[in-house]
């Protein structure tokens, strides 16, 4: 599974992307976030404030209850500020 981090989440995790193989019981975006929080203290810190982290699975916005599977591209980022 490919994980991408953008904007200040990239600074907090210290990386733009990483390849991970979470355990089989990690099947949702929310569970994946909890698991990633265990690997990156900066990610855990950002997660503590509700609604700060947005997620996308295979380049579509996703909610915590949405599924993730091996091979997915999962991105985490703060609310968008383009335009």
């Amino acid at each position, binding site marked *: 599974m490919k994980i991408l981090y*953008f*904007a200040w989440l990239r600074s907090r995790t210290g990386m733009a992307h990483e390849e991970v193989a979470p355990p089989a019981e990690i099947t949702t975006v929310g569970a994946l976030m909890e698991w990633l929080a265990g690997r990156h203290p900066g990610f855990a810190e950002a997660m503590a404030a509700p609604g700060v982290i947005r997620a*996308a699975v295979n380049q579509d916005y996703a909610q915590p209850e949405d599924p993730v599977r091996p091979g997915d591209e999962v*991105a985490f980022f703060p*609310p*968008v*500020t*383009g*335009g």
Partner: protein
Amino acid sequence: MIRVQEAPFDVGAELAALSAGRTDIGAIASFVGLVRDHAGAQATLAMTLEHYPGMTEKKLAEIEAEARARWPLQASLIVHRYGRMLPGEPIVLVATASPHRSAALEACAFLIDWLKTEAPFWKLEETRDDAGAGARWVEARETDERAAARWRR
């Protein structure tokens, strides 16, 4: 048409191209977003736009398709830049063409409002004030969320 690019663009040339060779278009509406030289009491020195290559193009194409489903548009264009820009430089251009003004104006407002809350771009602002220079990520504004919400069905 959508374009995501690092290079600056010429607003006049882009708008002229939208109706080039056509005589059926009666109205073109456009919105241009520029880098401002201030953010509150701080001076803005530069703005860097980061984006999510792939998802950006996908979301912009979806937003454009939604506009074309809702309004009778003859042409539409979204150009959004990424990378480092200086005050006065254009960041984004949205343009819509239709036989009459109301569809063009409404669709143009819809496109920029939705783009602001849906397209995966993030602004890093380089600022300077009495305390010195620094860089900070621009925070999302609730007013942008409200502006987008008025188009929700």
